[in-house]
Each structure stands twice: as structure tokens, then as C-alpha cells.
């Protein structure tokens, strides 16, 4: 299981960089599951949601699981706004 800590903000500013980091890590470790830690995140924009979607699609190819954990209410509300709560595995 690979762990990744999502930064405080995941938006247009740093989304491309974060995406690259995660994907490189996956290619190196080839994990069977990935855990994204949102405990310190206060803001995510559509750019950040896109990163989560890319991650899920990549892992789905190898049958791996992606878990998003530790979101606060505001962040969860944003995921809900985009309808992502049904397609991504979000835990408390």
C-alpha cells in the first residue's frame, strides 16, 4: 500500500506537480493500493479533483484500490459538488 500526503491546497497552482509526483511513485513502487491522506488539506479545486480522477483511472487498470482519507467537511463538500463521492473511495 502506497501512501501519499495531499498538501494543504490542491489547486491549479500545484495540481500538475502533485499529479506527476504520484504517478512517478506508482510507477516505481507498483503498489496494489494507494492511500491519499487529506488530513491537512483545506482546499481543493477542480484541478485537484482531476488529479484524483487520473489516479483512480491509472490504478483501475491494474485492479488496484484508491482510498481518500481524512477529509474535512469543506473539502468533502467540494467532492460532493462534483459528484465524486460516489465514484471515489472516501473514508473518514
Amino acid at each position, binding site marked *: 500500500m502506497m501512501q501519499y500526503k495531499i498538501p494543504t491546497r490542491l489547486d*491549479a497552482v500545484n495540481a500538475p506537480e502533485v499529479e506527476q509526483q504520484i504517478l512517478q511513485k506508482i510507477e516505481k513502487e507498483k503498489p496494489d493500493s494507494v492511500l491519499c491522506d487529506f488530513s491537512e488539506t483545506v482546499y481543493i*479545486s477542480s484541478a485537484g479533483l482531476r488529479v484524483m480522477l487520473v489516479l483512480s483511472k491509472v490504478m483501475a487498470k491494474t485492479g488496484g484500490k484508491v482510498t481518500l482519507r481524512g477529509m474535512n467537511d469543506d473539502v468533502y463538500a467540494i467532492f460532493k459538488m*462534483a459528484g465524486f463521492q460516489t465514484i471515489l473511495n472516501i473514508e473518514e
Partner: protein
Amino acid sequence: MRWIKKSLFLKLALLIVASSGVVLAIVMVVSNYNLRKRVIENQKKYYSALSLQAAHDINLRFFEAKTVVDKAVLVFKSKAITRAGSLNILRNVVRENPMIGGSAIALAPNQNFAEAGFQMLYAWRENDSIKSANRISPEEDYKSDWFKLPFTQKKEVWTNPYIDTDINKMMVTYSTPVIVNGEVIAILTCDLILDQVEQLLSSLELGHEGAPVLVTNEGQIILYPRKEWILKETIASIGLKLKDAANRKTMEELSEYLIKNKSGFFRFKSINSDDMVWLYFNTISLSDWRIGFLIPESSLLNPVYDLNKKMFLIAVLGILALLIPAFFVSHSITRPLKALCNAADHLAVGDFDTSLPKIKNTDEIGRLVHDFDRMRVDLKAYIKTLASTTAEKEKIASELSIAREIQHGILPKLFPPFPKYSGLDIFATLDSAKEVGGDLYDFALLDNNKLYISIGDVSGKGVPASLFMAVGKTLLKSTIQTINDPAKALHIVNNELSENNDACMFITLFCGILDLETNELLFANAGHNPPIIVQGENSHFIQPAAAPPVGALADINFKNETLPLPKDSMFLLYTDGVTEAMNESKQLFGDNTLLQLMQTEKFHTAEKCIATIKSQVKEFVGKAEQSDDITMLCILNKNYKTIESEKEKFETSIVFTNSKAEFQRIASWLEDLADKLKWPQPFLIQLNLALEEWIVNVISYAFTDNDIHEIEVTLIQQNNTVTLQVTDDGKLFDPTIYDPADTTSSVDERKIGGLGIHFIRNNVEKFNYERKGNLNVVRMIKKIAT
């Protein structure tokens, strides 16, 4: 024989040869048959003539001999009978005719032999001399045929032939009686040697299988290839000896026929083989012998067989030779066909430049090639036209959609448009039919608290109507801005539009100026639908003075009228796209329905009013296609004059450049403001989301050059409402026309991207776009929840 089936060339060539061959064969058979008949006829004639000729020849010889004897008889009768004299006569007879081998005088038994000096005298040819002597045994002679027959019958007689043992030759004797006073006193004879006859017959051309036949009138064989039968058999006797019954019958019939007939021909099966034989014969009249020729049928028909062979050979050679022109003809037909086939293949894949063979002839093939070539040329041109037409259409389609964007862009769409006048609730909408519409509405704040409003409907739809509309709107607005007089403005605009209006388009227009201080509307109408005013319980149509639409005829004077729009009154302008909206049963929505709707519903905002009407119309129309632009403008007076006080208003602005590095400034700018204005965290986050989405979008997509562009963001907060306005000079992009993103599909189905606009809409209450000149202006309004 599949290779024949596949090749027209071979089929054609073989067909030509085969049919010619059949015709040739039929011709050959028929002519062969005719020929055969003709040949047989000819042969018959020939052999008949030959036998006749032979008979004549032999007869002539006999006659010559007979004449000599007959002459001798006369001489004998003329003198007294003496030995010397008689000898002389005999010698003369023999001498005179080389065919005569001997001659005799036999005195009748009752004559005076002593007086005569002899009984029977005989002279004969021996080598080169003629000898004479008494007959040795006259008694025997008196018994023989040559004496008895003429003596008893008192007439000349030709005896049957016999072999003279002395000279070993075949002879025949001619005896003639010497009659004096009715009595036969002597018999005079001559013996004819028949070897000349033999020679004659054998010299004839009978073919190498033909044979001469000489028989007596009783069928006794005188001359015949079978030497053992000569003088020993008759035809009948031969027949009797045969074993085969059929052969016997043949001989019987032959014998009968010969004896009965003097001339003719008889066809019978040979007794030696299975071949048929022909016998042509005639009669030597003097001796009544039958002279004939036996010709086997096969040699008779030789000429026919010969000819058959020749004809067959010629036919075969002919057919072989025919192959050449047949191949040639076939080739001349199949070559262009092959070329056409080839060309068709090329055409099928779109190669229209394939060349066709040059055919000079004007027969069907030539015409086919010519027509095919024409078709090719036509196809090429047609496809070219089609391609360019399609390209044109696509160009037009894309131009149409651009035109739609432009047209929609020039309409004022920012609501609320005049935040300063918070008592003025104004809302408008335009739903166009067929991409680009002919309706228009417009409003603008003129100087000194006056609001210009207008609504119009151009005759027609599509690009021409929209262009006309654009011109009309611009013209009216600019005129009104200088001349605050609706009637005059319409007059001027009308003159402009009716000039050079070849298409004779026109616009129904309602144009008004609302004085925000006096609540009075000054208006003029040019043929447009009567507006509706709602005041409390009362709602009715305004009946403006009748006037024609603008653009049709020049120099029309319009009339200014006034209408008070007091507080809480609602004023609705609309086009006939609303009242004449048609459902599938071809029913119209109707003026009254609209009025009823305005009457019964109590709308709190102009926007609600228009939204309700729109949804009612939509419901009414159902599945039918929207036939006309649906346009409405609604004003609700909530005390226009109220101008919000300047206090409690906060305004600030910031400029971003179009680089991704600027993204982080958005968040920090908003954070500072949140701090200053005490925004709740969720509010900040939501506003951040909306603003970020839009700015990111502008920076990413609005600019197609590599220049630096500025994006100005203005924030106004008043009455717990934040208004963000973003202005950029990028390419026209109206985000409000895009469908909301799909937020319900699965991970696989979800497209990456497209969430931005969704985010904006979800986070702010109002999201409007307006194109102002070369600027995109986007406004977002969000209320701070209390």
C-alpha cells in the same frame, strides 16, 4: 471450361467460329447432297452415252462388213454361178474388210453343184494372203446355224459368237440368203473377227474398276472380265450356280432386264462383295447384242468422294483461317470493354483521371466508350462540386454558429445591469430559433436618469434577419443616445433602413425611454406587439398608435406616447415568438393566455416572470419545433429612484496577467479580502473555487497569441452581496451557453476536465456573461449567508 466462361474474348471468338462452322457444315452437307445427285446424273449420262457410242461403233463395223456381203450377194445374183466367179467374190469380200476373217458361199442343197462347179466355197485370210478352198464337210455345214437359220428364215442372220479353233479367235458370222424367185439358192456369209471389238471396248475409259460387258440378246456372255464364262455361260446360268439366294435373285433380275430392254442401266449388289454396281448398256442393233459397262458404285461416286475430301479440307482450313478474323473482331470488342472495366475500377476508388482507349468508330462499342468517358468527366465535376458545396456548407454552419455567438454577445445580458438602481428590476431573454435569430431587445442607461428600452422582431429568420437586426439595434441605440426622442429616433432609423433595402425586410419595433425620476415611460411603437402592464389586480395590453414597421417605407412619422409605470407595476415587452408559439396540433399559445398568466401569477421579480412565461410556453409547445425567436423584456418598479447609498459599499480590483504563475495570486488576494471583510470560511472557499475556475480558464484558453494580456478583476461588496467582475480581452467565449458537466457517470465514463463551469455555477448564485466590444465580461454574484 471455366477459362472460357471468364473470357468474353474467347467466348466471342469461339462463338463466331462455331457458328460459322455450323453454317459451313450445313452448306457442305446440302451441296454435297446436291452434288452427289448431280454427279450420279452426270455419270449416268456419261456411261449411257458411252455405251451408246460403243454400241454405235461396233454396229458400224458390223454394218460395214454386212454391206460388203450384201453387195457381194448382188454381184452373185447378177451372174451365172461359176466357181471362179464365186471365188472371186469371196476373195473380194475378205480383201475389202480387214475385220472379215473369212467368207463363204454355200449353195442350197437343191442346186446343181456340178453346173456350178462347187458346193461350198470358203475364202479366208491367212497371214497376209487370202486363201480359198472347198468346204470340207458340207453336210455338217448344212446343219449349222449359219446355213440353217437364214435358209429356213429366208433372212439375214447374225450367229452367236464362237471361237474359231483354226485361228483361235472369237468370231461371229453374218449369213445372208441369196433369194431368187422367192427361193433361197445360196447363203453368203462373212466371219467377223471380234478382237477389234475387244480392243475397242478395252480402250474405253471406264475407270480402273469398270469393265465392259458384251452379251447376246439371250444373255450369253461374249465379253466379260471373267474369261471362263465367255461363251460358256449366260447371265442366268451363272445366277443359278450361285449359293447365295439374294445373289441368285440379282442375276435373275439382271438377265431379265438385259434381255427385255435394249438400253438402260441396272443397279445391283455385286455378287462378289457388298458394293453396289451399276450396269449401263445399249444394243448393237445389227446383232442385237447388249453392250454395257459394269461400274462399281464406289468408283462411280469417286468424283463425289474426291470433292468431299477437298471440301472438307477447305472447310477445315477455312475455319482455322476464320479464327484470325474472329479473334480480331473479338479483340476489338473486348479490348475497349476491358479498358472500360479497368476504368470503372479506377472510378470506384475515386481516380477520375483514368484514361480511356481512343476509339474512332461510332458503333455501339465506340458510343459506349464515349458515353463512359463523358460520365467519368461528369462524375469528376460533380464530385468536385459536391466537395466544394459540402465544404461551403460546413463553412456556413460554422459561420452560423459564430454569428450566433456574436449576436448573442451584443445583447445586454448582465443582470442585474444597473446595481446602482436597486429599485429597477429589469430582466430580458432571447431564445432564438434556427441558430441566429431576428429578434432583438436592448436597454441602456442614458444620461440623467433615463433608461432606454426597446424590443423588435425582424421579418424572416437566419443570417439575413440577424444581420438586419444587428444594424437596426445599433442604429436605434446610437440615435436614441443623441436624440432622446423615441418617435424621432424611429423616424431616422426607418429612413436609414428603408434605403437600399432591396430585400424589403422590416423590423417591428417598440422603443421607449423611462424617466427614473418621474416613473414615466415615453414610447413610440412601429408595428410591434402591444406591451402588457400589470398593476395590482389589473393587467391589460397597452394600445399604442398604429404605425408601420421600420424599414419598409421611407419617411414615416411615428408618434410619441406616454405611460406611467408607478411603483410595483410590472411592464412586459415580448415578441410574437411567445404569443404565436405553436404546438403539434398547430394551436397558438395566444395573446390571452399570456395576459392571463400575467394576471394570475404574482411575480416578485422580473426574472421570475420571464422564467415562468418561458416554462409555460415550453410546456405548451411540447415536442413541436420552435418556429420563432422567443424574446421578452420585463421591468418591475421597486422604486427605481432608490439609489443605494454609497456607504457600506466596498469596491476593489486587481489585475492579473495571463500566465500560470498568476494562479497563486488569486487565492492570496481572496484570502486577504476574506480577512478584511470577515467572510466565513465556506464562503471564501466557494468564492475561491468559482473565481479560480474562471481565471484559470481565461489564462489557459482565451489568448491565442503569445502576448501578455491583462485580466481585470473587480470585487464589490454591498448588502452582503459580493459581485465579482472579470474582464479580459481574449477571444469571444461565452461560458453560459455550455451544458452542465456530467457529475453522475462512473470513473471510466467521466471525462477528465469540464468541471470548471459546473463549479462556478454551483458556487455562485448568478453567473452572467457579456461581450463588450473586444472584451469578455463575466459577472459572478454571491450572497453571504447570514
